[in-house]
């Protein structure tokens, strides 16, 4: 499908930037015909992926970089959240509801990403980093009504 627009955002791995990343991605995604509710779901998914990069990928080190690539196709949004951190040794296990390597966390981040987006792909190499790709389709009922 034709790429209509794209943006790449790189920022420091500090927790203040979770909100920035979420709202920036939603602002860009608003160029497609998403509803407010869709955008809220996108924000949650991005927050979870960026929080994971900070907390798990970089173990809360504040001097690392996180990159988000957002691509808009005709009626499809693709978001990639990329870190160069620890990586995930067992992706299947990581995706399991309530699995977490941190006993104080709920292990629901990937569950949220999966339920709010239409597709979730994870590329990860231990010691190299993680790329989380999420795709959300644009509600076709709005398109058809126009």
């Amino acid at each position, binding site marked *: 499908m034709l790429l209509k627009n794209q943006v790449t955002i790189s920022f420091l791995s500090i927790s203040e930037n979770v909100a920035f990343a*979420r709202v920036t991605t939603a602002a860009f995604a*608003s160029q497609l015909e998403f*509803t407010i509710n869709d955008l809220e779901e996108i*924000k949650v998914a991005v927050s979870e992926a960026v929080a994971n990069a900070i907390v798990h990928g970089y173990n809360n080190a504040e001097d690392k970089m996180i990159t988000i690539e957002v691509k808009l196709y005709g009626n499809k949004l693709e978001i990639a959240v990329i870190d160069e951190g620890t990586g995930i040794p067992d992706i299947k296990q990581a995706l399991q509801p309530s699995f977490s390597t941190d006993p104080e966390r709920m292990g*629901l981040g990937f569950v949220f990403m999966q339920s709010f987006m239409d597709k979730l792909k994870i590329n990860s190499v231990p010691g190299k980093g993680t790329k989380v790709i999420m795709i959300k389709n644009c509600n076709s009922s709005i398109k058809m009504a126009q």
Partner: protein
Amino acid sequence: VGEIRRFLRDDNPVKVSRSVKEIAYKVQQTKERLIGKLGREPSIGEVAEEIGLSKEEVVIALEAAQSPTSIYETLHQ
């Protein structure tokens, strides 16, 4: 330059800055009205057009007027 700054401060169409709370309230109202009219959820673009702001501006206002979205932040407040 000082004069230009003053002129623009007093009289700049770009700066009809409404507070984010005001915008967020307006967005909610407009959304409800459009649901009634269209029989479905409006897109962000339809809401933005109705209240005369850019889509991006509406997204930012909604974020600013809102409590945290992520469980991460909710847990770490």
